[in-house]
């Protein structure tokens, strides 16, 4: 899984570096589109390439022009800060269904080049103090509407987007770790030592939405898989779960989709009918991750 993913990354980044514009990647790829390149003489030689949305397409070899990686990073930074207009993402975690498969954790760690002790999502074994019930609780970043981490950051390296996502820009982070101190959900992790496979990804341009490559001395955190959302796909953890624990969607549209069954349901109804709650609601952070109670009899 690990290997497969990193291969994919390198392949993809290779393409990005070449500045290929694949057919049918209108939304994403136009950013990299340069008309002049297409006017150049065609020599008829075709080659197969992988586009940013992972489709294989054939293009004329003469169209392949290298793109400055810095420009690349800048563009990704820009769109990463703006976010997806008109959306407001929300996640629902059905605790009654979690069987501690940990597929969410593992897929997340693989994609984001994390070490085993670094978690963007962590499955915790919980015990209810009042009734003694035990259950497993996947805990990603809550993507709070009142994010403490964002308020305290001295440089705006961690920020809140209009679509509700709280992201981190590791090109800007100064490593003060105030955000780690401020987060009541312990959702953040730090690159204390050289990140995993640092050598390998050294020249890959930084993708703020995928949040890789990781960088020494900076903070890393769950990004609700912003890169996948841009492609209209579900986050990595959500699609990795075999037990139908995760729902994900847009609360403006009021629909969420189950990552396993792919069934789409009304968000408000799902929350209301199952007495959903948020973690540490009393702190007033207003999470965008909702939990459906564990061990429900009528399940």
């Amino acid at each position, binding site marked *: 899984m690990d290997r497969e993913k990193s291969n994919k990354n390198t392949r993809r980044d290779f393409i990005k570096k070449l500045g290929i514009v694949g057919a049918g990647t209108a939304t994403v790829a136009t950013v990299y589109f340069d008309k002049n390149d297409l006017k150049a003489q065609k020599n008829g030689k075709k080659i197969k390439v992988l586009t940013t949305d992972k489709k294989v397409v054939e293009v004329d070899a003469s169209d392949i022009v290298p793109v400055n990686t810095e420009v690349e990073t800048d563009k990704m930074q820009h769109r990463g800060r703006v976010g997806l207009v008109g959306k407001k993402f929300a996640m629902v975690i059905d605790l009654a269904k979690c069987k501690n498969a940990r597929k969410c954790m593992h897929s997340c760690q693989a994609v984001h080049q994390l070490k085993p002790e670094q978690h963007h999502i962590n499955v915790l074994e919980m015990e209810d103090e009042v009734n003694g019930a035990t259950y497993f609780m996947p805990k990603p970043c809550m993507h709070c509407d009142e994010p403490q981490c964002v308020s305290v950051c001295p440089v705006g390296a961690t920020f809140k987007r209009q679509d509700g996502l709280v992201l981190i820009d590791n090109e800007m982070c100064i490593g003060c770790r105030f955000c780690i101190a*401020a987060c009541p959900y312990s959702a953040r992790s730090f690159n204390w030592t050289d990140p995993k496979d640092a050598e390998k990804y050294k020249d890959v341009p930084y993708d703020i939405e995928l949040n890789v490559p990781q960088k020494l001395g900076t903070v890393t955190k769950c990004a609700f898989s912003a890169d996948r959302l841009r492609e209209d796909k579900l986050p990595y953890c959500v699609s990795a779960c075999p037990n139908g624990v995760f729902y994900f969607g847009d609360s403006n549209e009021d629909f969420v989709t189950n990552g396993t069954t792919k069934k789409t349901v009304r968000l408000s109804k799902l929350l209301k009918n199952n007495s959903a709650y948020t973690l540490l609601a009393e702190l007033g952070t207003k999470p965008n991750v909702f939990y459906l109670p564990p061990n429900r009899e009528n399940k």
Partner: protein
Amino acid sequence: MNNESTNSLSHAEIENDLIKNIHWSTKSKIWISTLLVAFAVCLYFYVTQLIHGLGVTGLHDYASWGIYISNFVFFVAVSLVGMLISSILGLANVTWIKPISRIAEIIAVSFALVAGLVIITDMGRPDRLLNIFIHGRVQSPIVWDIAVVSTYVFVSLLLLYVPLIPDFALIGKKLTGLPKFQLKIYKVLSLGWADKPEQFIIIKKLIKILLVIIIPVAIAIHTVTSWLFALTLRPGWDSSIFGPYFVSGAFVAGAAALVIALYFYRKHYGLEKYITDEHFNLMGKVLVLVSLVYIYFNLNEVLVPGFKPGTAAGAHIQELLVGHEATLYWIVQIFGLAIPFFLLLIPMFRKPIPITIISLAIFVGAWFKRFLIVVPSQLEPYLPIQNVPEKFYQYSPTTAEIAITVGSFVLVLIIMTLISKVIPLIPIWEMKEESK
């Protein structure tokens, strides 16, 4: 209250006594070389940290602030003593502080300057330091802290410098044997001072203004430093009395530091006629007073949440008093605060040697108190610590981390030694005024 002993001294005597520290004896050369070697060793560890990242420390995701931050808080705390002595007591017309106020300022400047470096050692990306100035967000308490600490360093430097102007002029005249460039610097710094009465009026006015300005700035530096913690939602930090609690604690640590500095400066430079036993006695009383205020805040800090054991804050206090951190907590509170307080009530213990030893205990205790404020709260997060290596449940600093922290103290000693080789430690002109 006038100082008996200085009253009887002639101006020439005062001048000679108080500029004789501007001289490098063999003993002081050995001392500074030792310090420099020690500093080089500590620097080596910092270089390894620069190369390998903060991974050389014992920090981890659940104790991401450790002794660097504790040390930073401590340094800021100690630097507050300048304001306590010169401003609070000085503006109240307490005259006995005159011979010790410059030493208090020296402590303030040295500790505040080094505090700035200590915070840099804690950064994961010191190479991006400038980001704070380029992309600084006014909403972040760190930015407030940087703003007030630099203002404090600046005003403290002025407060050290302005009363030195007449003394610079004097040194330039008296110590003609010094290297040319050094004399030139004195000349430039003396700004054409000529002991004219109108110059004295101006300088006194200026000092008074600075003394007033520094009060809010000093209170701000430590209050803002306390907010780095108090503005979060963590049990143990999320407290509305953190500001005054920190400021009162700072006075205790700072006053103790001053006593220690007085003792060593006095001994080494033979300043007994100016810094008398009575000064130690009075500093002992100051310590009693500030400790009393600090104890009061400690009581509030513990009792109020402790009364509600069901809350997260209550659980944190319990952990401190009888749990994991209890041993350190009680050692610090008893040996670093309670016993010193009671001993200092007895006149015998306010003699120079005993009070210096007591102050050392307070000083060390105060450092560990900062540790107890910073670290345990992080190790008791709201959600359980799971799926991480065993060592994430505790925090123990590494050799590199300790060496870098020790380095900050060595640097303070270097600065304080160097300063004592270039300026009179006691304002000569003020002493001369006293003896009129």
